[in-house]
């Protein structure tokens, strides 16, 4: 009978040992070894039964602590430690969505400025219509959020062809051929095509995309469009800095050559009211108008800057985007180039919202990597303190 009791108690002890937290598993082995050393079956059975009680009590206590810790974490979220990866679930790590909001903010600021400056109502209507159209296109391009667009190179080639056609047969003004007529509007093709091409190429820098960039650089040199050639070069330099690659270097070199070429050609276009040089003149209108213009300009680069800081996916695309729109703002500050979104013109609004629509969505990381990491953290939070709690308890 005692031999059977010993056997049963030992088997139960072995089975219960799987319930122990990992840091206490060696204590089961210690108990089992002692049971094995006891010559008398009755004493061994009693010893094993006592050990079984210990193992079960420890296992239950560990689980109770785990549940309590999980509930506490749920009610009072633990802030991320300095070395942990940034949270990827908030809007700050979703550049595509944040970009839409920033675009709407910039257009709103621009409309406020134009109202204060007394711009014709048609200007406000054009910007608002471009915002609505851009928002619809943003929705239509939702599929690009998760993975880099499969036909990015072909799309870039089509955009480069549009730039070349504009250079060869677009509307010309003061020796520059940058526009096409769409109904009552004159659209500046480069303000739409270049930001799109930069984001597409940053997300999928293949040979077809490189050829498209080289063609686009040539088209900008032909038009000529100094500001957008500089924008293209700035975006590609940022891309090479973020993710050095041979093809990207070729693209950056071609765009730099195109930019240098435009620098050699005098830009004789005059400043257009409510479009050019408003970064300087807005404060003459009203202090709040100036603040609105600066806020709108800052909003343009915010999605990429915040996205990078929040650990969003595909950082090279965000770097290229930030460099692109920073360069557009710089061009507006330095010369007679349109002030993006804030100034009148549907081209910049469409170009911005389309380039935003092609940015990575950012939610991929939170769906695939964020949740397991959080579970892992919870595991650490509930598993390790077992021995610490034991250390704090009186003997």
């Amino acid at each position, binding site marked *: 009978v005692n031999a059977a009791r010993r056997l049963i108690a030992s088997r139960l002890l072995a089975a219960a040992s799987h319930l122990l937290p990992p840091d*206490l598993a*060696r*204590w089961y*082995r*210690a*108990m089992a*070894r*002692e049971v*094995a*050393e*006891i010559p008398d079956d009755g004493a061994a059975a*009693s*010893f*094993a*039964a*006592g*050990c079984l*009680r*210990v193992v079960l*009590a*420890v296992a239950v206590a560990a689980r109770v602590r785990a549940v309590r810790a999980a509930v506490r974490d749920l009610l009072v979220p633990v802030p991320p430690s300095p070395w942990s990866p940034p949270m990827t679930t908030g809007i700050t790590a979703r550049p595509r969505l944040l970009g839409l909001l920033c675009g709407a903010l910039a257009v709103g600021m621009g409309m406020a400025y134009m109202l204060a400056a007394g711009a014709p109502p048609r200007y406000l209507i054009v910007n608002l219509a471009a915002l609505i159209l851009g928002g619809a296109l943003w929705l239509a391009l939702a599929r690009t959020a998760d993975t880099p667009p499969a036909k990015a190179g072909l799309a870039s080639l089509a955009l480069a062809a549009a730039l070349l056609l504009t250079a060869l047969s677009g509307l010309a003004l003061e020796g520059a051929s940058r526009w096409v007529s769409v109904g009552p509007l004159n659209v500046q093709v480069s303000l739409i095509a270049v930001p799109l091409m930069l984001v597409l190429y940053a997300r999928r820098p293949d040979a077809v995309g490189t050829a498209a960039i080289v063609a686009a650089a040539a088209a900008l040199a032909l038009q000529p469009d100094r500001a957008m050639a500089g924008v293209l070069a700035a975006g590609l330099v940022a891309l090479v800095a973020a993710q050095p690659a041979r093809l990207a270097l070729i693209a950056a070199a071609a765009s730099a050559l195109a930019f240098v070429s435009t620098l050699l050609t005098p830009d004789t276009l005059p400043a257009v009211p409510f479009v050019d040089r408003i970064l300087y003149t807005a404060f003459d209108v009203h202090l709040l108008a100036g603040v609105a213009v600066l806020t709108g300009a800052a909003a343009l680069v915010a999605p990429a800057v915040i996205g990078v800081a929040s650990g969003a996916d595909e950082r090279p695309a965000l770097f290229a985007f930030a460099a692109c729109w920073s360069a557009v703002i710089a061009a507006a500050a330095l010369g007679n180039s349109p002030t993006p979104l804030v100034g009148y013109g549907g081209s910049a609004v469409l170009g911005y919202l389309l380039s935003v629509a092609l940015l990575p969505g950012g939610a991929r990381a939170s769906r695939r990597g964020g949740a397991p990491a959080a579970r892992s953290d919870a595991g650490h939070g509930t598993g390790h303190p077992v*021995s*610490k709690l*034991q*250390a*704090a*308890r*009186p*003997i």
Partner: protein
Amino acid sequence: MTRKRALSPHARALLAALLGAHGRWSYGYELASLTGIKSGTLYPLLIRLEAQGHLEAEWQQPAASGRPPRHAYRLTAAGERLARGEASLSASDRPAAGWRAGEAAS
């Protein structure tokens, strides 16, 4: 923060047994036999003593060849201080308890 609380009689008995080993390693069943503490009480005490730094534990190869190693225990320096403190407290308590017992008997 750890609360200061009087040790249980079992904890005192275990500390006394370990102190009496004079630095020699002791096994679980041996300690249970020496102190009369059941295994269900002994191991929680050992686990807590080790977690608090009063006890060190290691796997030791038995003298008999072919046997698997056993978990052995001995007091750390801190554990010895605690055990000696408890022993002196018990010694100072003893005359009073004896006096009361004698008084009650007389």
